[in-house]
């Protein structure tokens, strides 16, 4: 509501903002109401809602594990966000601002990493860092068998979750750095600042909105994330809030979502406060507007011999974030069972898992549905949030509401979002239940916050003079957005499209309850393998998936290369 307050008196909320808000309300309010309702009512044995109660809120706070879970959650959120943001930003700086050889491969690496389904990424890291994994084998060999790293710890959780989000940081930060006018850095260097100092005090400061956007995204996401807490945390008896709630949901026979609903409602409030704080920051938006009408060529730092050091850093990141986890999946996919890395194990390799997987009647049926799901979700989310993000960055009256609405789904735990949407669609007046369209709508809602944070931080960089000039020249509003804003944002819009595509095709919990017989998507097959299959079959499915996603991403990259260069 800040925007409304500081807007000049008499300013009216524009019909466009109202229209966008209406779309968001239609999309987001029904599942949000479901969450609110289950948190405020008893659940009857048949799953319908009974008497009003506040007991879930009381129980949430008096939960025996609440304090320790909350502390673990904060540590986990801080740790994983810090790892993702620091590593991803360093990577982006090296790629965008130095002459390090081979730096463009980093994009390729990021795309492959994003194509690895999160659940498999976690499994790969557990195979690597587990008690019987190659890392501990090496430590035992070098230091002695008494020394073992324990991955089932809060640090193991933060590391695995953090590394998984490095590619997202890298893609956003490199888009930001690429479109940032470097004349400020040059001025600082001319004034006698060292290169490092210029990076620190100018480049990073200019990137503050993007860093805040990422921090908000990852921090809130850690509060909602489930795979790492379930697979890594629980095995080490470390509870975070989501796993405590998960156990509450499954406490008795009929699942009860009261506590989970209460938890999401509390998270909504926390995120609203974070957004409020971020909006205050953008009051000084002009400080970050670096995209002006002036032409500029990004300042590329000549590192001299140091460029081999930076190349080594990139290579190390490439190995750790992409190659090693993917390699361990490939290795596992050829095994009849996984028993650690050994010469003996190599001898057992065979193509059996692939034969089963690629045989008739497997996931091949659902490829088309999956690609439609990903493309439709990304094609809705990206333009929609670009428009919203721009309106918010321009502090258009009422637009702050768009920001809050579009960020809200970030904190709906995936655990319960599927149930909420099931309830919405099965009761909807339109016959959407069981169709692919219902999955597309649900997955668009889930990824709105990602599009929103990326678009907003991109739009903040654009100096309004350009738009002002266009308006004075008589361009209508739509033309300003289409001809000025979109081309300037192209680089970040394209990478956002790819991010949303790759994330939405791999979500399992959400489509599972929404699809009907015959409209399955690939992620459901993956989930089934996860539930019933052996880890080696799961790995082979993962390898095929990664190959497919890499192909799709490469084709997309080639098709849009022209745009990226233009930007």
């Amino acid at each position, binding site marked *: 509501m800040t925007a409304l307050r500081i807007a000049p008196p008499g300013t009216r909320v524009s019909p466009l903002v109202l229209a966008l808000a209406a779309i968001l309300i239609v999309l987001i309010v029904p599942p949000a109401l479901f969450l609110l309702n289950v948190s405020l009512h008893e659940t009857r*044995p*048949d*799953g*319908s809602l009974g008497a009003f109660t506040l007991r879930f809120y009381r129980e949430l706070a008096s939960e*025996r*594990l609440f304090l320790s879970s909350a502390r673990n959650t904060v540590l986990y959120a801080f740790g994983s966000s810090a790892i993702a943001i620091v590593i991803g930003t360093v990577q982006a700086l090296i790629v965008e601002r130095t002459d390090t050889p081979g730096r463009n491969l980093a994009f390729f690496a990021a795309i492959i990493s994003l194509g690895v389904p999160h659940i498999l990424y976690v499994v790969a890291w*557990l*195979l690597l860092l*587990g*008690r*019987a994994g190659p890392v501990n084998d090496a430590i035992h060999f070098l230091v002695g068998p008494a020394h073992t790293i324990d991955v089932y710890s809060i640090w193991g959780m933060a590391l695995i979750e953090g590394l998984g989000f490095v590619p997202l940081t890298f893609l956003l930060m490199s888009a930001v750095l690429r479109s940032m006018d470097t004349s400020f850095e040059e001025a600082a260097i001319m004034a006698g600042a060292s290169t490092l100092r210029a990076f620190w005090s100018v480049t990073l400061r200019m990137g503050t909105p993007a860093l805040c956007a990422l921090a908000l995204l990852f921090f809130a996401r850690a509060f909602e994330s489930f795979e790492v*807490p*379930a*697979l890594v*945390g*629980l*095995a080490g*008896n470390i509870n975070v809030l989501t*796993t405590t709630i*998960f*156990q509450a949901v*499954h*406490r*008795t*026979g*009929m*699942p009860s979502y009261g506590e989970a609903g209460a938890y999401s409602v509390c998270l909504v409030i926390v995120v609203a406060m974070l957004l409020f704080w971020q909006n205050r920051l953008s009051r000084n938006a002009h400080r970050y507007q670096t995209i002006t009408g002036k032409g500029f060529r990004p300042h590329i730092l000549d590192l001299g011999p140091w460029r081999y050091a930076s190349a080594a850093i990139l290579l190390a990141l490439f190995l750790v974030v992409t190659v090693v986890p993917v390699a361990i999946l490939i290795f596992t996919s050829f095994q*009849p*069972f*996984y*028993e*650690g890395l050994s010469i003996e194990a190599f001898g*057992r390799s065979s193509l059996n898992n692939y034969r*089963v997987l690629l045989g008739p*009647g*497997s996931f091949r049926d659902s490829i088309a549905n999956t690609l439609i799901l990903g493309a439709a979700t990304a094609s809705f989310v990206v333009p929609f949030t670009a428009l919203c993000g721009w309106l918010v960055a321009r502090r258009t009256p009422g637009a702050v509401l768009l920001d809050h609405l579009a960020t809200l789904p970030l904190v709906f735990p995936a655990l319960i979002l599927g*149930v909420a949407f*099931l*309830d919405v669609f*099965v*009761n909807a007046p339109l016959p959407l*239940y*069981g169709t692919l369209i219902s999955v597309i709508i649900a997955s668009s809602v889930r990824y709105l916050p990602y599009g929103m944070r990326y678009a907003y931080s991109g739009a903040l960089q654009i100096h309004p003079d350009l738009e002002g000039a266009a308006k004075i020249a008589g361009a209508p509003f739509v033309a300003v957005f289409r001809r000025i804003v979109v081309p300037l944002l192209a680089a970040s819009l394209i990478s956002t499209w790819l991010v949303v595509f790759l994330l939405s095709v791999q979500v399992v919990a959400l489509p*599972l*309850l929404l*699809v*009907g*017989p*015959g409209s*399955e998507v690939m992620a*459901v*097959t993956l989930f*089934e393998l*996860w*539930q*019933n*299959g*052996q*880890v080696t079959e799961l790995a082979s499915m993962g390898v095929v998936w990664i190959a497919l996603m890499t192909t799709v991403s490469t084709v997309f990259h080639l098709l849009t290369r022209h745009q990226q260069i233009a930007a």
Partner: protein
Amino acid sequence: MIFDHGRTLIVRFAVTLTISAVLAAIAGTARAQDILLSRRPDRDQAILDGARKEGQVVLYSAAIVNQALRPLSDAFMKKYPFVKMTFWRGDTEEIIAKLGAEERANNLVADVAEGTGVGDLAVDAGFTQPYFTPQVDVLPERYRDPNGRWSYTRVSYFSIAYNTKLVAAADAPKSYDDLLDPRWQGKLAWRVGTASGTPLFITSMRLARGEDQALAYLRKLAQQKMINFGSGSARTLVDRVIAGEFPIALNIFAHHPLISKSKGAPVDSRLLDPVPSTAGTMVIAKGVRHPNGALLLVDFILSKEGQQILADAEYFPVRSDVKPQPALASIIPERAGVPELFLSPDLLNQNTALSEKIFEELFQ
């Protein structure tokens, strides 16, 4: 006047329509109920004719798609080409969530639902209606529900799994009391967050030993620093045992280690006295849209042919005239000479909540 007359007509029409809709619904339910409970001599022919008219049937099941559901639907449609059978696969909790949402919204897609725990949860919630199938006559007594609320489809036996490289066969626990040996401290993993995990172990202990002794036993077990494994699937836990992460896992499906062992994996299962067992249950949804097709499908899944498909998919059939896969037969308690404790849905229903509570107090 004309306007009034028109309005009266409309009101009359609406009232007639509503009454006939309600009557049709009641009649429909009654008809469906008659069909489902029919024991008339022409029952088989009647449901065949009815299914032909309905033309389709939908199954929600927790069984594996590739090895079980797809072959089932292929064989069913080969036998009855005039009925299109489609299926949706989810875990028990998801099946209940989806079926429940459909029932509450009166927007039913499922006709038949199947899975471990599906019967008791769905019946309890009032999502089902009773039915009769002549196929139960050939089943052993304990796999029949006298009230016709569900039928049993496949059996599961629970045991421990141990990594044969980390634990020699001679050392592996042979009884529940062996699990209390201090040398296993911090080495025993079990699954949390699912009814077939820790609650099932605790329930079987309470039923086998009585409340007091079970509680004394579980208190000692809590001293063993149990590893609470939270990823949900028993198969995954066995994979972690094979990888050497956990030397011993409790309460896993006894046949999973055998399947991996046959491929050379360093793992084995051991039955402890008593061996807990459960059975998957199959229900027909309340307000079922294809009652004849549903019965035809239920009959088929329980027939020799249907049970053979489940056996081929590495499940244990409920029919005694269908044999499980030879490699898996060794863990059938009767053959191994170890007493079995069959946990019927009713037994689990009565005990799970308290078992959960005991788990939270002692092990969390």
